[in-house]
Structure formats: C-alpha cells, structure tokens
C-alpha cells in the first residue's frame, strides 16, 4: 500500500511538471501559429551578448537544414529581457524577421533545456528532436 502511494505521489509531481512545461510550449506554439506538419526551432538569446552567440545557432540551423534533418520549420528567438519593448533592440541588431518572444529567465527551464542550451528543435506535439549546448 505504502509503495503505491509513493508511486502515485511521484507520478503526480512528474505530471504536474510535464504539464507546466507543456503549457509553456503550447503558449510558444500558439505565438508562432505552428501547424501540425511544422517543427519549432527555438534559439535562446540575450541582448547585447557577443556576436558568436547569435551566429552559432544560426549556423547550426543552416547545417541541420542542409543535411535534411529539419524541414518545414518556424524559428523563434526566446530573448532574455524585462520588457516586450526591449525585443525591438534584438530585432534591429539582427535584422530579425522571424518570431520573437520574451524570456523572463525561466524559458530554458520550462522547456526542459539545460542552462547552456542554445538551440532546441521540437515537433508539433512537443517532442524534442534536437538540443544543442
């Protein structure tokens, strides 16, 4: 009996964690209007950081696309800043024409990515297919 309650307890915690991650993913998915046959690529960015931090994920995306590992995707920059207004800085710095979303500092955590992840590729259903650190 005891063991069952423990299993239930951990199951509920895991479910809770999973659903909160999933809620965040769904918000992002909605933000980019992701279609069923599309993948979502998320790059994790800071404003005012080094050029390499921008070029590295962009080069990886180009490589993944060239190798046919990703296709039909939408690209979202999750940018660490305090206000939506600050996203304009990023937009201008990089001539950014793809999707943008403000990261309050917990974006990676909510998506189950490590602190040093710079790029994640998700399927429509939230399944992570690539993560790069």
């Amino acid at each position: 009996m005891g063991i069952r309650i423990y299993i239930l307890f951990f199951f509920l915690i895991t479910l809770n964690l999973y659903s909160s991650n999933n809620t965040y993913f769904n918000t992002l998915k909605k933000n980019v209007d992701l279609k069923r046959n599309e993948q979502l690529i998320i790059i994790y960015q800071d404003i005012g950081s080094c050029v390499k931090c921008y070029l590295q994920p962009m080069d990886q995306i180009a490589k993944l696309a060239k190798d046919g590992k990703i296709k039909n995707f939408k690209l979202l920059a999750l940018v660490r800043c305090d206000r939506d207004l600050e996203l304009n800085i990023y937009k201008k710095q990089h001539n950014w024409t793809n999707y943008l979303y403000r990261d309050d500092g917990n974006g990676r955590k909510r998506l189950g990515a490590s602190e040093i992840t710079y790029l994640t590729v998700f399927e429509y259903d939230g399944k992570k297919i690539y993560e790069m650190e």
Partner: protein
Amino acid sequence: MKNIYFLIISFFYLTFISYCADKFEPDEIKIDNSYEKRFKIISKISIQENENAVLKSIADVDISDNKLYVLDYGSGNLTIYNINSGKLINILKPEINLSDSVCVKSFSPYFMNTLDYNYIDIKVRNHKRIIPLDRVKEMNQFNRILIDENIYLLSTLRTYCYKKNKANDSLIANTAGLVEYDKNLNLLSVIPFANSYKGCPIAFDFIKTDNDEYYVVTSDNIRQYYQNKLDSLPILGKYNNNGDFLKITNFLDDKLTKSYIGYGIDYQISLTKVDNDIFIATPYTSNIVNVANKNTFNLINLPFSNDKGFEYLENNDGNIDTSEVKNKYLLFPVRTYRLFTRANSIIAISHILFSKQKKGVDFVQEYSIDGTLIQQGQVEGNINNAVLQFIHYNKNDDLFYFFRKDNSKGWTMEVAKWE
C-alpha cells in the same frame, strides 16, 4: 491512513532537510551608523523611450550642457536627453564603419597573430564577398563615456578578419577603441588600442590623462578560457595617444585567481582619477588599489564581507556544491561596480545583495585617497517595483543620479544630494 500521515511527514521532513542544506551564509558585519548621511531627492524625471530608443540596462552616464548622455548595454547606443525634461534629443549608433580604423593599424587580430589572419575593412569585405557576418547588423558597442570639450566613447569595436588566400575562412575579432565626437556629434577620431597582450578584449573603462595617455580596462578571455591560465591575468593597460601599447600596469587581484573566478561572473572593473593618481576597483574584492604604487585599502563599514565566499571557492577548487550554496551570488553579497571622483576623494558604489528575502541596496561611500571612510549613504534597490539599475555622480553639480527601471512604467531618474 497511517501511510498518508507518513507521506505528509516525509514530505515536510524532506522539505526541511532541503531548507537546512542551504548552509552557506556570508559573514555579516555590524554597521557604524555615525558615517550615515541621507540622500535627499530633489527631482524625479521620466526618461522617454520609443521604438528606436529603448534602454535595456545602463552601461554608463555623463552630463554636460544640460544634456544627459546615456549608454545602453543592450543596443550599445548613446542616447541623449534633455536633463530637465527627460525628452529624447538624439541617438548615436556605434556604426560598423568605426571598425574600419582598426584595419589601418598594424597589429594582428588577437591570438591569431601566430596564424595568417588579417583585419579587413567593409570595402574589402564586400569585394571579397565574405558573408557570414552580414547577418549581424549592429556589432559595435559604446561602453564608457567621458565628456570634456568633446565626447569620448570607449568602445568595443568588432572587426572582420579573414585568412589570407582563403576568403571563406573568416571571423570577427574584438578590439577596444576610443571614439571621439564633437558636441554636434561629428566624428573626430577613432583610436583602436593595439591588443598585443589581450585576447578578444571587450572594453570596460578608461582614463584619459593630462598627457593624452590612456589607461584602458579590457578583459582577456583567450588567456583564461583557451589557454586555461588563471595566474597573472592582466586587467589594465597603458597606451599612448596613437593607441600603441606601452605596458600592462595591473593584474587581477590574487583573490580572484586563487578562487578560480578569474574574469568570471560580472566583469566590471572601474577606474577613477584623483589629481594625478588613478584608482581601480574590482567587483568582489572590496578594495581600491592605487594603480601607480599599488597601495591598497579595504572598503569598510559594509553589511557583509565577501571573504568567506573566496575561502569557500579556494577550498573547493572553484566548484560550488549546490546543496550548500543555493544561490551562487550569495557567495559575494558585496559587488563594487563603480568609482567616481568627488573633489579630492573617491566615491565607491557597491551593490549589496542581502538574501532572497530582503531587497538589495546600494551603498555610496566616500573615502579619502588614503582609505579613510568619510561618509556613506544607502539607496534602496526596489521602490514600488522601480528597481535601481545605475548610480551616477556628477562632480560639476555635486549631485547623484539614481536610475530606476519599472517593467510596466519604464525608466525614471532621481536627482539626489547628500543632506
């Protein structure tokens, strides 16, 4: 039912254990209140923002001719406001063509000087169709500002390089440079500082001497990260007015190398000049060093000491055990981030991080150049969600300027004086 009680008790027990595991506590120091002097707020001004002039976080500020000059860390821009109304007057961007002056200097790109890389200007880059970096529109940053008869901006200049005879092998190198404008924002000169002893330097602070020599603080990531060296990390170099390197004048404090921090977390090194003496402060060491004779004095009468944090890291080979230290920043609750000169004394600004429970506060302290504490004041870190981001002292009007950011209401500047 017993099992449910057991489960609940276990849950609270584990939570309690986890709470107790937050073992590290910095040493608290009782403050002598006799040094305390209150700040009186004279005025409060909203700073105008628009789509083209957004402030993310302030890198530096100066004031001249009733104008407020603000450098933004996010965009790297200089934004100019009316000091009385906070209305936006102008924006100056560190355009990429500033980098071209790096190419005409005869020094090699940082650690690649053993390889065959060359700096190239925009014209050559376009001619050779060197691509990858065209995707980045704005790369340069203004980091520090000094205004006298002209406007001097210490900048991080990012410059294109390519390998000779192999045009597709290209990279971006950083160089510190001093950009000079007149007050009508006409470009007068760009002095790139030759970086023979620095790798990938990002500019942080500078002093212009009466002899037109320059002391420049830059980081040297190459030595620390690529060569895995932590000893003798240079922090301050001296240059002539042509930008030629003369000598290294200061190395990073032993405390920061022995604790394996090196240039890590918040590399904010600050300089100030009192008469002919130049002083330097590093963020966590709680001391101020005279650059010429290396005489050092400790900052006193602050609510915490960082010593325990340094001891902890030294004893743990630089590693942090997350079961002991939940918030690594609490290892160093005192961060001295800015020095100013007030008549013949030094103003040191330190941010104090109390704990997760208590709001942060900035301490403004005035010391004589021999290290005697004259007076100090405290500035609340958070007032009704307006979070203190930067403090500037202006010697011309003897006033302090507190910059606060409210995520919904924007930026305000409080003008204050010591009562």
